[in-house]
């Protein structure tokens, strides 16, 4: 939140113009508020003001039990709620040393990858919209609709799934699940090439993104970037590869690295990740093992005294859960390491000396989800 006096101090510099992008703005995709200092069209400083959707989830979780708090986390990164729930469930499992049955592990990975696909699809449409092409948004939503329908069949909801619980998943997958996923994969494999034709090769799009928002490998590490943002700068940081969880170590997929460091590199990383996700789903969809979908757990979970950290690769980067337990039924302190928060901290660095249009393109390429940043 800003103070009037700060604004006056900055605008008193000769030729500087302060504009507020957000909290209500078409391209902040939520309620992000950026105070941008401009000199003509050139950006001198970008200052994010957060908290418009801050719900103090960390404090809220301190009074919720280990089963309850997972449901709140769906509301953080609402575009990848499966992955949020997964990270939280894994952290509780790590504390209780629960062995998750193989069937649940495969279902979890399938759901994670479908979530990643749907999140990247929405990002693709939204980034194209930020850059001025409105049509891709609708094309992306056509495919995303199929994924949300798949989620709806199994989880009953389309956005905040609350499907992963400590010990496995809430319920077994719908009998129709395998068929609908296969149908979707066949449909989407053609469409992803259409995505490339529509946007990737477009000369205007390439001009708008190449060399824009450059961040070097060293700076990306220093700014704590993760996920496609860091991998677009050549930083190897895929949790699925480096610290494999569930069945990821048995799967054949690549970690996508692009050395460019600009918006186009981040764009390419996500586009290629979608293809990797398709390949992961194809490897698993016919091989869901039989068995329980949930391990036997006690009704009331009590984590031993200590601290537990577990992280998952969400669509935006490393989503980490840090639980400090005093041995009770509720966490003593819980901290969510949200990928968007760290990625956002690099926004000012990336967009300086660019134009307003560049700032919008950079925001698109960072794939910000505001509730994930504000928590």
């Amino acid at each position, binding site marked *: 939140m800003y103070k009037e006096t700060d604004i006056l101090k900055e605008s008193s510099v000769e030729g500087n*113009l*302060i*504009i507020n992008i957000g909290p209500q*703005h*078409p*391209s902040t995709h939520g309620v992000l508020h950026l105070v941008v200092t401009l000199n003509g*069209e050139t950006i001198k400083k970008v200052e994010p003001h957060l908290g418009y959707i801050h719900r103090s989830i960390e404090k809220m979780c301190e009074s919720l039990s280990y089963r309850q708090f997972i449901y709140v986390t769906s509301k953080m990164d609402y575009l990848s709620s499966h992955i949020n729930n997964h990270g939280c469930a894994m952290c509780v499992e790590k504390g209780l040393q629960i062995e998750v049955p193989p069937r649940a592990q495969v279902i979890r990975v399938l759901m994670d990858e479908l979530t990643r696909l749907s999140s990247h699809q929405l990002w693709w449409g939204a980034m*194209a*919209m*930020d*850059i*001025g*092409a*409105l*049509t891709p*948004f*609708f*094309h992306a939503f*056509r495919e995303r609709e199929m994924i949300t329908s798949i989620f709806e069949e199994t989880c009953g909801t389309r956005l905040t799934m609350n499907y992963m619980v400590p010990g496995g998943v809430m319920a077994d997958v719908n009998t129709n699940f395998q068929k609908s996923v296969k149908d979707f994969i066949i449909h989407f494999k053609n469409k992803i090439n259409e995505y490339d034709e*529509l*946007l990737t090769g*477009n000369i*205007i*799009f390439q*001009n*708008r993104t190449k060399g824009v928002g450059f961040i070097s490998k060293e700076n990306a590490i220093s700014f704590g970037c993760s996920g496609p943002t860091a991998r677009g700068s050549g930083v190897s940081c895929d949790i699925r590869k480096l610290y494999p969880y569930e069945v990821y170590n048995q799967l054949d997929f690549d970690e996508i690295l692009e050395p460019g460091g600009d918006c186009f590199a981040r764009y390419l990383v996500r586009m290629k990740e979608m293809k990797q996700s398709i390949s992961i789903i194809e490897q698993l969809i016919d091989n869901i093992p039989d068995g329980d979908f949930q391990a036997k757990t006690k009704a009331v979970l009590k984590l031993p005294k200590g601290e537990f950290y577990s992280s998952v690769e969400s669509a935006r980067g490393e989503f980490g859960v840090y639980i400090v337990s005093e041995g009770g039924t509720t966490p003593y302190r819980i901290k969510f390491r949200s990928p968007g928060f760290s990625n956002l901290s690099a926004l000012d660095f990336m967009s300086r000396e660019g*134009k*307003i*249009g*560049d700032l*919008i393109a950079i925001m698109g390429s960072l794939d910000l989800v505001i509730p994930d940043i504000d928590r």
Partner: protein
Amino acid sequence: MPSLENIANFIHNWLYTTFNATVALLLEFTIVAILVIGLFSVLGLVLIFMERKVSAYMQVRLGPNRVGPKGIFQTVADTLKLMVKEGMTPNNADKFLFNLAPFIVMTAAMLILAPLAFAKNFQIWDINIGVLFVTAISSVSVIGILMAGWASNNKYSLLGAMRSGAQIVSYELSAGLSIITIVVLSESLKISTIIESQANGWWIFKGHIPAIIAFVIFIIAVTAETNRAPFDLAEAESELTAGFHTEYSGMKFALFFLAEYVNIFIVCVIGATLFLGGWMPLHFGTNTTFNEMMDYIPSSLWLFGKTFFLIFVIMWFRWTFPRLRIDQLLNLEWKYLLPISMINLLLATAMAILGWHF
């Protein structure tokens, strides 16, 4: 055979035989004004509906489909909504300029209609410097946009207006140069003479490569001049919310919106007139049978057909391309389009002097 030409002549003769010359002239002014305003409102409705359907077709959706059959009354409903909506004026805005701006934009658009030929011998004012008049008036609308941006007392509006100023003034050059290419070839500034010169073939066919290059540059430049995507930096809804008309609402916003579509229509009429023969049917040299067959199609249909084809092309741009950045936009004009159109003009002039065109 009732054609627009005959009807116009009939009314003209009837007025001048019934009333004395002054009254008849005043009555003619009134009729023309009503017709222009009527054309504007119809164009607004038709073009906005067309844009919605074209965009819907490209974006895998249906578009308006509830109000009236196939949704054709959707824009009527929207117009009614805009009419009854409160016209807000922000605090600290320059009220006089703020209210004046939409009218300047609209009036500039109306003025350009004067020398345009909508059918054979159906023209409001066949001025002998028609093309010059069109280029001169079309730069007036930028004043309205700058006025709107400045008077709104909003930084987004100001940025949008400044972008628009830089953009329109630059793209005017290559639009002008590509128009001059045709002026050189047809040896006249008068719209009717330019159209007559295409009786044995449109300039885009007769003028070899220079005419085609000029046509392409013209389409790019006028897309920029009408602030349409991919050159819609003045509005740039993902960057500047709505650019120069951020603070406008109700009917004043509607005037800007209408002016945008009318401007598209006008530039497409000019494009069709200069490069595609205006109301002139598709003629090929002296092939009389073919030419006569083509003459059976009314001349107004020819013009509107060509115009709407060009409008469709411009809409097609909008719904497929991303937006350029301001420096890329100016680079495109000053580093590529302007030199190309200058050389192109030189080529066309040489061609015209040596008589190489058909």
